[in-house]
């Protein structure tokens, strides 16, 4: 019989890399010889496990050996080279050495429980610190990964009457480009959505940047193929497009002959003139660039056409000098155009700051303050760990006393204890960085999903700066966990400990401070942990709840139309181009939209794969809304929340299989202007009318402006039906009011929901895009997604938050439990001799135990009592929490756990105390 005699490859590689070269072959041979022997005995699995154990043992020991010999060699060289330097070294003997490092590693292995708990807690604290640091750094960093990127600025006008509101228009662009000398390559862009139609591919809505030719000069990037947009293209309104590298690879199969090909972007045909190099995504995260050109009619309305304007600071110019020049231009513009430029303050900001709308030092200060606050988490955890380390240091008081007696200075001993903590914190930093790396990747993905796109300069990853920050946190952690206990342990009591050495090892006197620490530790755990447990429960429930309908069969999209106005606007979303057109053109566009949208819905409904289509205009009202119930006191008003009103098509309820609990649903007779029927859900009916019937009640919406007196009260509406609770967005249904969607009143964008006959609607998505493009290429399907996918993505984020909270909670619980265990165990150990002597003198063991446990219980009960008071107080302050929400179980669980841990900690030493021989106890005395 042949036996596979090759040791595990990975283990062998690890072993060979850990062994010194001169002894590698013989040890490898010896271990292989033993491995073959073990395999010959028949149990290959156990042989492999043995080989792994030996590998780890050899690796660890030879690592320590290597550190030792290096330290020795260095010391020899120093001593040989300069006796004077050697003398100075002995003076500087307090500095950590290789021996300290070796001892520190040994301590980590020697106390595995303490090391595990401390490293778990510290690594999570460091991970949280690193994540927040990375996010804050990404937001406030002004560097842009472009040539001279740190000198790129964005310019706009702050509206003085509306703080936080910024605007810039075609008029500003024209004026600034010609007058500014402190800013070069002044460029403008606006981002629009266009349906890309290319042969043999499904139409797709893409971001298209209308960018001035100077934008390419600003980014200082040459095209990979062809050319970029020129001023002539801009002036001549040429239908040309430059595409990005990724788009070229993905949609055009990296075809080198792509230049000159024609593609349809919405309602227009464009010719591809260039391909930009890999990584070029300026201005935000873009892949299609077309010239920014305006006709005479648009130029006539230049004061209202919004544009984002950017440029590069000229040599010697600063944001301050550019701001000053822009302010001077602003004064001239206010005089020339009082209708559009009064009450504006020109603003020059670093490009990246403008993206996040950070316009003053205060916001940056707040971000750093937040960072500091998060850093405090580490301080709290480190303080907890320092208690554990202190308990361990206390048991080593004898060793410290002997070292002091042999001539070690206090600084030397402190430095050794610091090195031990540093080893622990450095390990925690490595684990924390790995954790943070995983989480940052997820955060990047989630942010990408939430915002649609992330700017090209945001890369949440472990950069050298972030790693440096983690090491700094490790140093802070080591200072707290190492130096404080070390100073305490090497204080004046060292002499006393030395004197006691001949008696019973040594012990530190801890007294009242120790009792206070135990009580405080239990109290903090009982105060804080129920909150975390409660929060984690909520997050888990929301991320695992049932959505209540077959979301896999539902496709959702927002239907809009080119230039007909869209809700989303800004750097990330597409910009509202309704201002590019006159009022008459706009109303014609809206009429066309209604017509095309209705046609699109009709065609989709008649498709054999479709079970139903419903329109659902959410948030279509732009004013604040509140409701007054006619039959109830005037004071009964629900707070304004426009998300609660849904304008739905007549088939909406049927499509989601929503039964009516009372009354009726909408019919075609309700879908006309002036209709008064509304349907509410059960939560709304219950909240507003209690047990009384909601049917027949009347309500009306009152449009208000900025919180002043109600204006424009709408007509009285009547509740004609109550529908089962349902919410396609939230797992916990909110109160909802449904009104019939009237086709003639709908404005773009319009949300539509398509239910397909198949269980997976994903396959129908390309066809839906084709249907829309066939009705009108200008019709846009934005955010087309299967409902189940949207739910999955939004849950992903809450799930990560949940995991984070649970991980932090478990580590906090472990730390608290370990802290209490260490302190209780230490206290009872101190009484071991007392217990021995009492039992030697004939005391009843039960009575002795009772006295030990009475003291332990008193401390724990006191801690729990203080903790409960703390929870109640925190609950009141926060206005929610475990007590407020009736989740007392979390409180009971944490209290019971702390009590159990405390009692278990007392059992071991008490039992050992009882087992002690009376003679031994007396001799110790």
């Amino acid at each position: 019989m042949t036996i596979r005699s090759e040791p595990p490859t990975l283990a062998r590689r690890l072993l060979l890399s850990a062994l010194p070269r001169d002894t590698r072959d013989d040890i490898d041979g010896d271990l292989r010889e033993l491995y073959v022997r073990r395999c010959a005995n028949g149990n290959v699995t156990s042989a492999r496990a043995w080989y792994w154990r030996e590998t780890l043992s050899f690796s660890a020991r030879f690592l320590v050996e290597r550190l030792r010999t290096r330290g020795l060699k260095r010391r020899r060289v120093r001593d040989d080279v300069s006796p004077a330097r050697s003398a100075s070294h002995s003076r500087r003997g307090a500095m950590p050495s290789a021996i300290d490092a070796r001892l520190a590693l040994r301590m980590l292995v020697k106390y595995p429980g303490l090391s595990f708990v401390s490293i778990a807690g510290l690594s999570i604290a460091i991970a949280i610190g690193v994540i927040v640091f990375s996010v804050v750094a990404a937001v406030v960093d002004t560097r842009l990964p472009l040539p001279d990127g740190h000198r790129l600025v964005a310019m706009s006008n702050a509206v003085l009457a509306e703080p936080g509101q910024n605007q810039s228009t075609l008029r500003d662009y024209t004026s600034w480009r010609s007058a500014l000398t402190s800013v070069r390559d002044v460029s403008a862009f606006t981002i629009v959505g266009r349906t890309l139609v290319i042969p043999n591919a499904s139409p797709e809505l893409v971001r298209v940047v209308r960018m001035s030719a100077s934008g390419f000069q600003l980014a200082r990037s040459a095209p990979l193929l062809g050319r970029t947009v020129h001023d002539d293209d801009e002036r001549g309104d040429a239908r040309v497009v430059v595409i990005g590298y990724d788009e070229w690879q993905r949609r055009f199969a990296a075809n080198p002959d792509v230049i000159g090909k024609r593609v349809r972007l919405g309602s227009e045909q464009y010719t591809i003139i260039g391909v930009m190099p890999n990584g070029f995504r300026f201005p935000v995260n873009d892949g299609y660039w077309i010239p920014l050109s305006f006709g005479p009619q648009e130029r006539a309305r230049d004061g209202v056409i919004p544009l984002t304007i950017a440029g590069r600071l000229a040599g010697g110019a600063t944001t301050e000098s550019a701001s000053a020049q822009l302010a001077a231009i602003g004064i001239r513009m206010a005089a020339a155009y009082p209708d559009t430029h009064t009450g504006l303050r020109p603003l020059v900001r670093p490009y990246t700051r403008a993206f996040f709308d950070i316009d003053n030092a205060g916001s940056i200060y707040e971000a750093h303050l937040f960072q500091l606050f998060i850093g405090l988490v580490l301080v709290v955890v480190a303080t907890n760990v320092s208690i554990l380390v202190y308990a361990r240091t206390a048991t080593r008081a004898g060793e410290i006393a002997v070292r002091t007696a042999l001539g070690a200075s206090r600084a030397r001993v402190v430095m050794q204890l610091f090195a031990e903590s540093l080893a622990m914190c450095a390990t925690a930093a490595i684990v924390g960085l790995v954790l943070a790396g995983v989480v940052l990747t997820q955060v990047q993905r989630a942010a990408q999903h939430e915002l649609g796109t992330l700017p090209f300069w945001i890369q949440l990853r472990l950069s050298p700066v972030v790693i440096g920050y983690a090491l700094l946190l490790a140093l802070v952690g080591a200072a707290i966990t190492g130096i404080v206990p070390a100073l305490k342990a090497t204080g004046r009591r060292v002499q006393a400990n030395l004197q006691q050495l001949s008696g019973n090892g040594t012990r530190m006197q801890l007294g009242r401070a120790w009792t206070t620490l135990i009580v405080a530790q239990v109290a903090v755990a009982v105060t804080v942990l129920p909150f975390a447990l409660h929060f984690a429960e909520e997050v888990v429930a929301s991320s695992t709840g049932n959505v209540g309908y077959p979301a896999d069969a539902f496709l959702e999209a927002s239907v809009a139309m080119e230039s007909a106005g869209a809700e989303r606007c800004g750097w990330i979303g597409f910009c509202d181009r309704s201002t590019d057109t006159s009022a008459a053109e706009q109303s014609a566009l809206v009429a066309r939209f209604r017509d095309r949208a209705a046609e699109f819905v009709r065609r989709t409904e008649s498709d054999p794969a479709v079970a139903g289509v419903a329109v659902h205009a959410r948030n279509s009202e732009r004013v604040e809304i509140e409701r007054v119930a006619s039959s109830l006191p005037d004071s009964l008003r629900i707070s304004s929340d426009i998300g609660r009103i849904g304008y739905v098509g007549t088939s909406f309820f049927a499509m989601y299989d929503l039964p009516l609990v009372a009354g009726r649903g909408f019919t075609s007779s309700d879908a006309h202007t002036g209709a008064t029927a509304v349907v509410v859900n059960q939560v709304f009916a219950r909240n507003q009318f209690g047990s009384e019937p909601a049917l027949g009640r009347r309500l009306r919406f009152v449009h208000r402006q900025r919180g002043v007196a109600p204006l424009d009260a709408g007509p009285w509406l009547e509740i004609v039906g109550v529908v089962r609770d349902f919410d396609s967005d939230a797992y916990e249904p909110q109160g909802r009011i449904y009104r019939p969607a009237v086709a003639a009143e709908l404005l773009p964008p319009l949300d539509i929901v398509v239910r397909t006959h198949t269980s997976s609607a994903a396959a129908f998505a390309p066809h839906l895009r084709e249907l829309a493009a066939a009705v009108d290429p200008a019709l846009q399907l934005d955010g087309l997604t299967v409902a189940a996918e949207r739910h999955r993505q939004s849950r992903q984020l809450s799930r990560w938050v949940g995991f984070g909270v649970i991980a932090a909670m478990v580590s906090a619980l472990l730390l608290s439990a370990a802290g209490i265990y260490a302190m209780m165990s230490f206290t009872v150990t101190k009484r071991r001799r007392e217990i021995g002597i009492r039992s030697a003198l004939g005391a009843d063991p039960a009575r002795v135990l009772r006295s030990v446990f009475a003291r332990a219980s008193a401390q724990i009960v006191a801690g729990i009592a203080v903790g409960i008071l703390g929870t109640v107080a925190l609950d009141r302050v926060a206005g929610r929490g475990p007590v407020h929400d009736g989740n007392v179980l979390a409180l009971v669980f944490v209290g019971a756990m702390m009590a159990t841990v405390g009692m278990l900690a007392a059992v071991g030493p008490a039992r050992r105390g009882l087992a002690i021989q009376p003679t031994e106890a007396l001799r110790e005395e």
Partner: protein
Amino acid sequence: MSHQGLGDFEQMVLLAILHLRGEVYGVPIVDEIERRTGRTVSRAAVYITLRRLEEKGLVSSWMSDSTPERGGKPRRCVRVEPHGLMLLRESREAVNKMWRGIGPKLEEIR
């Protein structure tokens, strides 16, 4: 010239080498210590001790021929040098001196 004494483990390794006959290398040394003391020892610790003993000139080593069951790797055979024998003798004498007269006291304590 002053010299350092032998540690417990170093003594154990040197004595195991002396007990063994034939090709003395890591594998039989570990077996010998475990057999005689009845304790499990860390194999890595034995190899590191052998390296240190060689560095101090207390043992010397040479490579034997390779064998197929060892994947063609040679054995590192060791023997105790005169200096090592001398230190072993000194250690034994020191321990003997310390034990002298302890026997009755041990009985008393028991």
